[in-house]
């Protein structure tokens, strides 16, 4: 266990607390509910699903707002999970920081793209 206070604190170290744990659960539940909401609309739509029906599902305002929240939830959830994995397997501090920064840029970029697609529907 390294020293985790003062000048020797590890910036890429653990957060020790309820926040990450709880946000992981809350975002997971949100994504699970979204999955069910999307699945129900696909299953209960009549006839084969072409472009109109598929895009129609996402163009309803409530679905747009929900999908927006889910994109944010995915980025947050993936960040917490990936951070855990990096802390377990990547020991050199510099490399871990570099990978953590890459993960954040990757997730924020993907979230931005997803939201752009969603909001021009």
């Amino acid at each position, binding site marked *: *266990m390294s020293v985790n206070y003062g000048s020797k604190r590890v910036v890429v170290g653990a957060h020790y607390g309820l926040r990450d744990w709880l946000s992981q659960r809350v975002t997971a539940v949100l994504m699970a509910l979204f999955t069910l909401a999307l699945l129900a609309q696909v299953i209960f739509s009549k006839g084969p699903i072409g472009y109109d029906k598929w895009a129609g599902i996402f163009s309803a305002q409530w679905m747009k707002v929900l999908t927006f929240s889910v994109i944010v939830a995915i980025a947050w959830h993936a960040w917490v999970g990936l951070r855990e994995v990096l802390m377990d397997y990547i020991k050199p501090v510099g490399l871990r920081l570099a990978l953590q920064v890459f993960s954040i840029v990757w997730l924020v970029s993907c979230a931005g793209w*997803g939201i752009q697609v969603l909001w021009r529907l």
Partner: protein
Amino acid sequence: MTELAKKRPEFRNINAFKDLTTYRMTPAAWVSILHRASGLIMFLRLPFIIWMFDTSVSSEISFAKFSAAFNIGIGFVPGWFIKLVALALIWAYLHHFTAGLRHLWMDVSHSAVNKQFGKSSALTVLVISIGLALVLGAKLFGLY
């Protein structure tokens, strides 16, 4: 921090090829490592997932491009490869989803936190996720 008082021993002599292959992993251990692997797969394929979302909802023309990518292929990538990547994502999602529900169930139920349930629920997760992935994969590749 009580850990600061005494330095804990660290064991760093595990060889990935000689030692890891001799581990006898329990079902719960498989579910745990696959939870990480499936999460990592989805993280790395995120641009592909959003590309699928983009092309499938943006317009009639892009929707046709989306379908063609799976049926014929796109660029130099053949259709069967796109389907294979999609199937890997389907499995990853199913595994992460069911293993996640197992986690949530253990969070809210004290009676679920024991050795027997740990084993039986892990087996259930593996059967459901792999089974559903096979069923959906067969559909994706047009076997029925």
